[in-house]
C-alpha cells in the first residue's frame, strides 16, 4: 500500500471503483460540503474536491477535504499547477498529508481566462506530469525536486486525468504512458460520450500494457437537459458529444430521466471494457443524483475495509 486510502484498497482488492465529484462552494460556508458528504456517504469510494475549477475562486480543496473527512467521507484533492509554484505545491502536499488527505489528483489546471479572475498572473511552474514526478519522488524517496531530503515523507496515492478526446488523438495514449512513468497510480478520464473513440484509446492503452500499471476510472457526466448536451458538444474544449446523444436528449420527454438512463447505460457498458477499473461520476451541480445512478448501475453496496 502506498497510502492506504480507501480508493487504493478498492483498486487493490480488484473491485470496480466509483468516485464522484463535490464542487467546493464559492463562499466560506462549509455547509454545502457537509450536506453533500452526508448525502453521498457510502455511494462512492472517494470524492474529488475540485481545485478552483475553471479558474473560479472557491473554498480551497484541502480545506474542503478536511470538512468532508469529518463526515467520514474520503477525499481526493485536486491540485493544479496554475496557482502554485513548486514551493507551494510541495508544501501543500505535505500539509494535505499531515491533515490525513491520502489521494491527490495532479492537474495542470484550467487557464485563468476561463474563470472569474481573468487578470490573474498564472504560475505553471510545472505541468501535471512534472507535478506527478515530483510528488512521486517526494513520497518514495522523501526527496524534494530541489534535492533536499525530508524526514517524514507524505504517504499519498497519486492520480492524474487524461482526455482521450483532445487533439492530437494519436498522442493521448503516450500522454498516459508518461503519467504512468511519472508515478500516477490512477487516472480519471474526461467524460466519455463517444464510446467508440474511448475504446479505441483503450485499445492503445492495453497494447502498451498501461492498464496493468494504472487504474483507469472512466469519466461520465449525467446530463439534465438537451441544452447541457449541446453546451458540452459546442462549448467545452476537448469534449466530444456525438449527435446521436444530443438527439436522444432532445427527443426525450423527461430529459432528466433520460440523462440518468443514458449515464447508467454508459456505466454498464464501461464495466465491460477491459482495463477500466472503475467510473468517475462528474455530476456537475447535480450531486444529489449520484446515489440513484450508482444504485441503478448495480454498484451498491460499496466495499468496506477494516481500517
Amino acid at each position, binding site marked *: 500500500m502506498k497510502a492506504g486510502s480507501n480508493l487504493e484498497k478498492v483498486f487493490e482488492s480488484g473491485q470496480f471503483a466509483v468516485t464522484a465529484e463535490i464542487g467546493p462552494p464559492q463562499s466560506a460556508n462549509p455547509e454545502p460540503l457537509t450536506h453533500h458528504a452526508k448525502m453521498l456517504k457510502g455511494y462512492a469510494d472517494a470524492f474529488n474536491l475540485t481545485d478552483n475549477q475553471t479558474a473560479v475562486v472557491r473554498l480551497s480543496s484541502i480545506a474542503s477535504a478536511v470538512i468532508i473527512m469529518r463526515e467520514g467521507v474520503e477525499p481526493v484533492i485536486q491540485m493544479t499547477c496554475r496557482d502554485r509554484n513548486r514551493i507551494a505545491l510541495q508544501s501543500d502536499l505535505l500539509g494535505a498529508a499531515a491533515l490525513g488527505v491520502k489521494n491527490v489528483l495532479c492537474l495542470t489546471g484550467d487557464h485563468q*481566462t476561463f474563470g472569474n479572475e481573468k487578470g490573474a498572473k498564472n504560475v505553471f511552474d510545472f505541468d501535471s506530469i512534472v507535478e506527478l514526478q515530483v510528488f512521486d519522488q517526494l513520497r518514495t524517496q522523501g526527496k524534494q525536486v530541489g534535492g533536499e531530503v525530508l524526514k517524514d515523507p507524505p504517504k499519498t496515492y497519486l492520480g492524474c486525468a487524461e482526455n482521450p478526446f483532445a487533439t492530437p488523438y494519436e498522442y493521448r495514449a503516450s500522454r498516459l504512458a508518461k503519467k504512468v512513468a511519472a508515478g500516477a497510480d490512477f487516472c480519471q478520464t*474526461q467524460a466519455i460520450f463517444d464510446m467508440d473513440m474511448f475504446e479505441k484509446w483503450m485499445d492503445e492503452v492495453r497494447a502498451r500494457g498501461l492498464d496493468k500499471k494504472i487504474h483507469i476510472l472512466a469519466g461520465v457526466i449525467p446530463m439534465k437537459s438537451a441544452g447541457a448536451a449541446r453546451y458540452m458538444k459546442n462549448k467545452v474544449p476537448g469534449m466530444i458529444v456525438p449527435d446521436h446523444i444530443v438527439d436522444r436528449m432532445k427527443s426525450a420527454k423527461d430529459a432528466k430521466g433520460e440523462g440518468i438512463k443514458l449515464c447508467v447505460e454508459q456505466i454498464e457498458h464501461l464495466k465491460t471494457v477491459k482495463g477500466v477499473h472503475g467510473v468517475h461520476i462528474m455530476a456537475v451541480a447535480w450531486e444529489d443524483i449520484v446515489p440513484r445512478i450508482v444504485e441503478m448501475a448495480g454498484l451498491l453496496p460499496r466495499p468496506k475495509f477494516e481500517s
Partner: protein
Amino acid sequence: MIVAKRKPLNEIAEMLAPYKKVTVIGCRSCVAICLAGGEKEVKMLVSALKVKNKRDGRKQHIEGTVVERQCEKEWVQEIEAQILDSDVTLSMACSLGAQTIGDMYPKHLTFPGLNTGMFGVPEEQGVWSEKCVGCGNCIIHTTGGICPIARCAKSMLNGPCGGSANRKCEVNLEVDCAWAAIYDRLKLQNRLDLIESVTPAKDWSTSHSGGRRVFEREDAKLTPHQKKGKGVT
C-alpha cells in the same frame, strides 16, 4: 524582434496634457518593423496630437524625431539637445528605448508611447505572434523547433493539455495548439521518441524568475585602462 503596440491615443494625450513642450522619439529598429514606433508612426502621432490640441485650444509644442536604435546610448546621445530642450519625451520605442533615455537623463521625464508586448515574428502582413519568452534555457531542439514555453498558454513541457480541440488552443481558438504543432513537426522529422519520455521540472532560474538578468562577455568589455583612454565613465 521586440513587438510593441501603440498605447491608446487618449492615454497618451492624457499623459502629455500637463506639458508645454513635447518631443516624440521613434526608433528605426524593431518597433519600426512592427509598425508601432517608426518614423511614420511618429509623424502620424504628432499630427494627430496637434489636431487634438487645435480642437481643444491647447497650446502645446510637439515635435517628432527618430533614432536608429533607441536602446543604445550612442544613438540617443545624438539628439540629446532636443530631448533636454523639451518638458517631456514620449518614447515611441519599446520600453528598452524609453528606459535608456530615462537612465541617461534621470531628471528629464520620459514617458512610454507604446506597450511593449513580446518577442515575436511577423506571420503575415500586419500580424505578429509571440514565439519566445526569453526563459534563458532554450529547449527547442527537443521540441521540433517550436517553443512550448512561449507558444503554449500553460507553458506545458510534456505535451498538450486536455483542452486542445481541433489542434487549437482552448484559450484562444484562433491560435494553433503548440503541442499539436510540436507533435506534427516531430512526426514529420521521425523524432516522436523525443516526447515519449517525461521532461522533468524546468529550472526557471535562468528566466526572469531568477531575478534581473545581465549578460556579460569579458572579451568585449573594456578594461578600466581602456575606459580611461576612451574617456568612458
